């Protein structure tokens, strides 16, 4: 079964708007990671947040983690057409162990 579940499954916005994607998980985690996948390509790591962290920033990305609710959100600010991709959250219990993925959010940014 999938550890992470993303919400929404699909999101369509205009360029310049912010995009927010949510992820929920079921069991305790070591860290939570977000990945991007462009159509027909492999996954690219975006950002990692540890279980003892609450918020992290990287460029236009902002990730929050609420371990009490077992949920995370990914915010992409000032979106661009090039941000169009699928976004996945993934969790592990320790580094090097199985990384469990959700089913992803398909983001479309319209120019």
């Amino acid at each position, binding site marked *: 079964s999938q550890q992470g579940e993303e919400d929404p499954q699909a999101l369509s916005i205009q360029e310049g708007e912010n995009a927010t994607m949510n992820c929920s998980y079921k069991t305790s985690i070591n860290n939570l990671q977000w990945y991007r996948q462009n159509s027909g*390509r*492999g996954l690219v790591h975006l950002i990692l947040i540890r279980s003892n962290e609450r918020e992290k920033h990287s460029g236009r990305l902002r990730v929050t983690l609420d371990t009490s609710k077992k949920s995370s959100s990914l915010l992409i600010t000032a979106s661009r057409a090039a941000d169009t991709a699928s976004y996945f959250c993934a969790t592990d219990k320790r580094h090097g162990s199985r990384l469990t993925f959700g089913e992803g959010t398909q983001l479309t940014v319209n120019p």
Partner: protein
Amino acid sequence: DAGITQSPRYKITETGRQVTLMCHQTWSHSYMFWYRQDLGHGLRLIYYSAAADITDKGEVPDGYVVSRSKTENFPLTLESATRSQTSVYFCASSGDWTENYGYTFGSGTRLTVV
């Protein structure tokens, strides 16, 4: 995807045939993984490895075999391919010193079993 390569990029095989998907990484990463990606199921872990000669089953290992005689290679073999194994297969790796950078994925192998 520099540093981790998968081959072939595309493969069509017949039901019942044995097929091997290759994965090679140049970073001496300890950890390597095989996932399959299907519509409606996201990415599911098939097998993973913590080091050479150490492998473990993931979520969907049936019908697959792996080996890891060298740190840099982690081939995945379908012993007798079935149509249900039609999928996109991704290899990934991670090192002890790269925890903050997540896992690095290859470009994938699109396998079709006819």
